[in-house]
């Protein structure tokens, strides 16, 4: 970065200063990392703007939802309910969306996600901090297991190509990847939970037992794992098939490459060929897929978390959508978008670490 300091233009008498600024910016933008980060920021801004107006176009607003609730549950008249709702919420349904947008972006630039509309006094960032870790934990664990296991099995399939093992695993992975993950969840719940009673469905709700006190005790960690078991199992069953098939196809492609044949001819040990030649190259396309999958699974966690009553960000999003809690919804969309963008960025960077060819062409 040091080479980009504008020392040279300062020495010459600059005729138009703005030209140098533009030139400087252009050179700055030519940097691969800068460009990637700039694109990521633009993407995040575009998503915020898009979702901001979208969720305000939804029929019904937080006040109306609450008014409905009050009229149905407490038999209030519309006027009573409305004045109660209006006084309770720090939200003016009549303010123009553009004003709201400018205000929101102003706060956002200061790192402030605002307050939840339906539960005043609760900051959205606190809500997210409360729910997001559980989703990161369960989705992350599920992805880690399915990715490792799937890549290993996929490599085995490729090495044992056209054998009974390959055919069986191919069939299993097709079936696993075909069925939606929440359908697996329902099956597991009904067959093993309700019918066979291998576990108590009611006890496994939530992220940890209400009797537990959170802390770094072995007991608490065990309880957390027990509650995360079902969602993690579903994330694994839902995505392992894809990893297996992709890794298999990718490895088969790599095994046919000349350099693998040369490595064999040089008499390298098969474990070295597997790790340094085949595995490394075959797993490259998997990292791009991983980035896409993270977004997909976090998005899909809405259904899984609702199904298992697991209080993560997905179930929080579902709640805020049904309550039309704009600021909470907006915050969750922002967080999920950032996680997708960041995982894409990381996949890019990882890719360039693993594949020198990308690094070279990227820096050109």
């Amino acid at each position: 970065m040091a080479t980009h300091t504008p020392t040279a233009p300062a020495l010459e008498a600059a005729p138009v200063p703005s030209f140098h600024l533009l030139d400087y910016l252009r050179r700055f933008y030519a940097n691969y990392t800068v460009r990637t980060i700039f694109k990521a920021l633009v993407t995040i801004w575009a998503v915020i703007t898009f979702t901001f107006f979208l969720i305000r176009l939804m029929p019904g607003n937080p006040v109306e939802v609450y008014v409905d609730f009050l009229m149905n549950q407490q038999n209030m008249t519309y006027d009573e309910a409305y004045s109660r709702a209006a006084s309770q919420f720090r939200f003016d349904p009549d303010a123009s969306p553009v004003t709201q947008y400018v205000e929101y972006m102003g706060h956002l630039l200061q790192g402030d996600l605002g307050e939840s509309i339906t539960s005043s006094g609760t900051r959205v960032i606190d809500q997210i901090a409360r729910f997001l870790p559980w989703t990161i934990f369960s989705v992350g664990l599920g992805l880690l297991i399915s990715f490792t296991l799937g890549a290993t099995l996929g490599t085995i399939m490729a090495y044992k190509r056209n054998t009974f093992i390959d055919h069986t695993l191919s069939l299993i992975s097709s079936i696993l990847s075909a069925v939606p993950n929440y359908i697996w969840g329902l099956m597991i719940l009904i067959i093993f939970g309700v019918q066979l009673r291998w576990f108590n469905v009611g006890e496994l709700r939530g992220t940890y037992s209400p009797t537990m006190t959170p802390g770094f005790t072995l007991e608490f960690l065990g309880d957390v794992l027990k509650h995360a078991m079902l969602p993690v199992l579903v994330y694994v069953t839902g995505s392992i098939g894809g990893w297996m098939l992709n890794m298999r196809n990718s490895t088969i492609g790599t095994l046919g490459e000349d350099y693998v044949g040369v490595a064999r001819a040089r008499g390298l040990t098969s474990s070295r060929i597997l790790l340094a030649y085949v595995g490394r190259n075959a797993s490259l396309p998997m990292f791009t897929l991983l980035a896409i999958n993270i977004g997909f699974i976090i998005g899909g966690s809405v259904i899984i978390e609702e199904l298992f009553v697991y209080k993560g960000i997905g179930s929080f999003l579902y709640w805020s959508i049904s309550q039309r809690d704009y600021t909470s919804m907006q915050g969750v969309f922002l967080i999920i978008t950032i996680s997708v963008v960041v995982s894409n960025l990381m996949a890019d960077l990882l890719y360039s670490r693993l594949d020198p060819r990308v690094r070279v062409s990227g820096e050109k």
Partner: protein
Amino acid sequence: MTATTYEPTRQRSPHFFDSLFASLGIFGLALRRNRAGMVGFIGLMIYAVWVLIGPYLVPFDDQVRLDQIASPPGSRLVMITRVEDVSRYTSLDDLNGQTVGVLDRSGGETMVEPYEDSGALEVETERFSSGRGVPALLDQLAEGDVDAVVLFSDAAKRYLTPSSSGENDYPGLVVSNAELGRPYILGTDTQGRDILSHIVHGGTTLITTALVAGLMSTLIAVVLGAMAALVGGMVDTIVTAIANLVLTIPSFPLLIVLAALIQLNNPLMLALLIALLSWPVLMRAIRSQVLSLRERDYVEAAFALDLGLRHIILREILPNMMSFVAINFIFAVTRAMYDQVGLIFLGMVPINDYTWGVMLYFGRSRGTLFSPDSASMVLSPVIAIALFQVSMVLFARSLEEMFDPRLRTAK
């Protein structure tokens, strides 16, 4: 081919449909080599028949039967008589001129339908209070007011078999060996309605919507992908930017918001919505395929001859990636199914139609999910959806192997 029908242009660039049929030609040959693909194909054929013809064969069961809530699979009508009459009444014909007690099948009303409706036999019928009136009915039978009672096997079993304490409330009554009517193969739901009929009817809208959504998504992807790759420049930049943006927004949550926004009253809107959010992955794949195809000599020749973008896309590029597009169309359909059923399961789509997804939604919202007695109500649609998805994917995978020799398992 005779000289008169010889068309040189056609020879060089096969028409879109020609290549489609050509690919169908080797299709049967390849399926024979791939057993999993065969299973998938047969599965899809079964689903096609089921969805198209099934609804005409099995009428939709909308009758609420409060006496027959959540009966297990295999339940059917049976005849109950007093022990001493067991050898006398063994079939409906034996009841000619006798009195038969039948539970009201409309539920909650005090009226009972004449038995002719289900038995097609002229017998004198008594009217009984219905709903949970099984004990009352059995009492009347025990007291001799009626000669036989027709009940569902499940309800009969509940009262006539001895409980764990060894007590039988009706020692004088017995199920005669006559089983009447067709069985409820999949049991009944929480309102006593036949689940099988719901499974038969519940697929049509779902599968059609998924197919339409998959078709639209593939179409958008092909058109935009080919345009981005062939026109390049601004078009490419804009299309790619939009694709990346749509890929970044968490699509399922966005779908939930949009579903609430648009008030999806018809399946076509839902299909369009799903398509609008699912095209980018395929579009990027097609763009890179077209980018490599456009380097080929015949495409460059077509450009040099200035044959027009439409001609180049439809006649030069597309026929060469038909298999790729066809496979991805199938995956787009399964993806659409995922989104669609997920939305319905969460209750985000207005319920116009009693589909498999709606059955799952009711399973969740009415708590039957957690009742051991009503497993059939949720498991049936779950299995129907799962098998459809599996058939689609097995079929697509076999197509994939067929067209990509590198993946071919059979030597």
